[in-house]
């Protein structure tokens, strides 16, 4: 039994300290955070969010942001406990032991695979629109998965399927972007959002905001969970990536002050943008209209205002922004499966590093193909809910870990201490549970199935093949 919780030795990890320099300041972190946050949900999930909560979607964004703020502080402490850079998966292997580490890794695989699939479905929505602006038509059958839009017959999302394969290929041979390319992408995303707000805010008709919150906090409507909380559970996805800031404790000057500022500022700025944007969108278009624009909600607004030129600019910006997000998600996907394979919890296949390209070539393609199929065949309604539940569970485990470690190992050095423990992690956990509760029960069921598959792999394979040596010899 105890071998389920066998732990990695921290000394194995710190043997070679990697030479990272402390160079990041508050604004570097803020920029990093905004870059990681903006570009996913806002282009894709505002439609589904608006259908779930009405104009009160603005409050849902606020709620999701608060959840992220508390969870982000907890993760920052967790990430700074080991004096070297590593993943949440590796930290939990040290802190809680193997089975929890496996669960976190397995959740993150779900997050990245379905995250990439979700974004590619949105990508496809804007791409098809751009093509049709240029007079090129793709057969409707091949533009979305079955059952995406009621009354429209679709089978397979071809553009989404193809973009995932192209990006998988790019990642498998390695990619080197310069800082300038990265910074440019962040600025493009911001510029598109600001331009959109400036050009459409004049078309707001306040009567579209009535009723402001047609479904209240939580209600059951046409067989699905509706209201502010369920919408918050969906748009939580718009903030995924914000904790990229938390893992930079080692590279940050004076992390105990800079980190919380970086986290809070990047959350604050993106939340303000999100709230203005959703209020604008639901103010210009009655929220019920979005059902026809599920994959590319911003286009609903621009169709109403008749600004075709703007819809071209927004589509190009959204496509660029979402391409980088898919890149990041698939990259993370290949790396987390690499880590688990290295520790023997997954077959060696996923951990083999190609010598020429310095990438886990085979694992990248394996998950790339599965993700591509998911993006082609599964509709956005299912994808978008499932992607969040894995992340939320990982945050619950991390926050609980911070609480636990303060009790059991108060002596361990922490590069950053979350303010207000035990209140902060408890609030984080409560928010995460609330957001999970806001999802539909079908999603819980699918997640339980996912976990069960994971446990089958763990007990059938991982536990016996784990490379970690059991000190007691069992």
């Amino acid at each position, binding site marked *: 039994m105890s071998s389920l919780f066998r732990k990695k030795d921290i000394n194995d*990890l710190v043997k*070679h300290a*990697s*030479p*990272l320099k402390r160079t990041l300041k508050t604004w570097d972190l803020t920029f*990093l955070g905004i*870059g*990681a946050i903006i570009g996913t949900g806002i282009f894709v999930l505002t439609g589904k969010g608006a259908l779930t909560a009405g104009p009160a979607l603005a409050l849902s964004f606020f709620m999701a942001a608060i959840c992220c703020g508390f969870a982000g502080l907890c*993760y920052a402490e967790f*990430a700074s406990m080991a004096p*070297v*850079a*590593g*993943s*949440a*998966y*590796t930290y939990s292997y040290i802190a809680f032991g193997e089975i929890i580490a496996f669960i*976190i890794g397995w959740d*993150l695989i779900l*997050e*990245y695979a379905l995250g990439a699939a979700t974004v590619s479905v949105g990508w496809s929505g804007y791409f098809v629109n751009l093509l049709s602006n240029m007079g090129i038509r793709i057969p409707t059958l091949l533009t979305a998965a079955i059952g995406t839009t009621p009354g429209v017959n679709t089978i397979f999302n071809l553009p989404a399927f193809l973009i995932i394969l192209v990006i998988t290929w*790019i990642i498998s*041979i*390695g*990619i*080197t*972007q*310069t*800082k300038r*390319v*990265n910074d440019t*992408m962040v600025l493009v995303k911001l510029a598109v959002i600001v331009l959109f707000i400036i050009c459409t805010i004049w078309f707001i008709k306040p009567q579209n905001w009535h009723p402001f919150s047609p479904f209240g906090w939580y209600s059951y409507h046409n067989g699905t969970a509706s209201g502010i909380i369920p919408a918050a559970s969906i748009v939580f996805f718009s903030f*995924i*990536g*914000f*904790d*990229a800031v*938390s*893992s930079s404790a080692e590279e940050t000057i004076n992390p105990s002050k800079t980190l919380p500022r970086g986290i809070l500022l990047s959350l604050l700025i993106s939340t303000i943008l999100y709230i203005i944007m959703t209020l604008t969108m639901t103010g210009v278009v009655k929220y019920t209209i979005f059902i026809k624009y599920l994959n590319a909600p911003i286009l609903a607004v621009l169709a109403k205002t008749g600004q075709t030129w703007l819809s071209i600019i927004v589509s190009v910006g959204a496509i660029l922004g979402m391409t*980088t997000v898919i*890149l*990041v*998600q698939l*990259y*993370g996907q290949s*790396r*987390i499966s*690499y*880590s688990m394979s*290295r520790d023997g919890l997954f077959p060696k296949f996923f951990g083999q*590093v190609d*010598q020429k390209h*310095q990438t*886990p070539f085979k694992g990248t393609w394996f998950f790339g193909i599965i993700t591509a199929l998911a993006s082609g065949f599964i509709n956005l309604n299912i994808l978008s809910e499932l992607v969040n539940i894995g*992340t939320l569970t*990982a945050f619950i485990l991390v926050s609980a870990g911070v609480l636990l470690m303060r009790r059991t190992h108060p002596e361990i050095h922490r590069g950053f201490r979350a303010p207000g423990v035990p209140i902060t992690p408890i609030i984080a956990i409560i928010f995460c549970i609330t957001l999970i509760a806001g999802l539909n029960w079908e999603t819980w069921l699918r997640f339980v199935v996912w976990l069960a598959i994971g446990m089958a792999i763990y007990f059938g394979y991982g536990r016996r093949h784990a490379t970690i040596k059991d000190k007691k010899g069992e």
Partner: protein
Amino acid sequence: MTYKRILVGLDGSEQADRAFKVGCDLSKSLSATLYIIWIVNRDRGMDSSFGVNEDFYRDLYNQITQRIKPYVDQAQAQKLNVVSKVLVGNIKVILAKEFPQENQIDLIILGNTGINVVEKMIQGSHSGYVVRHSSCDVLIVK
């Protein structure tokens, strides 16, 4: 002027090995200090939640720390004054700017990376970037 601090960038390729040999010969005849560095490319734009990429960089770093040793031995066998370093970071920026500036490098020697046209389109040529952006002399070994 003569070169006093010569930098060679390694990546395990044949071309880089040739650059290393040229670097050794030059350092010997000019009695310059030879800096050999090998960089694990870490792309900030690829950072994602829960730090999942960090394990991979660490492992590569540990492997390369081993793989750079024979080069150091080889240089020391030729009685060269050699400094070696394995770094994690943006390969282009470190080669072109950061490392040369911090160590007052006056000559950078690189192999012409053997990548094909498509890869060049996606990655951009490292040596080409260094030639364009570095403030000191660059020697490309073919």
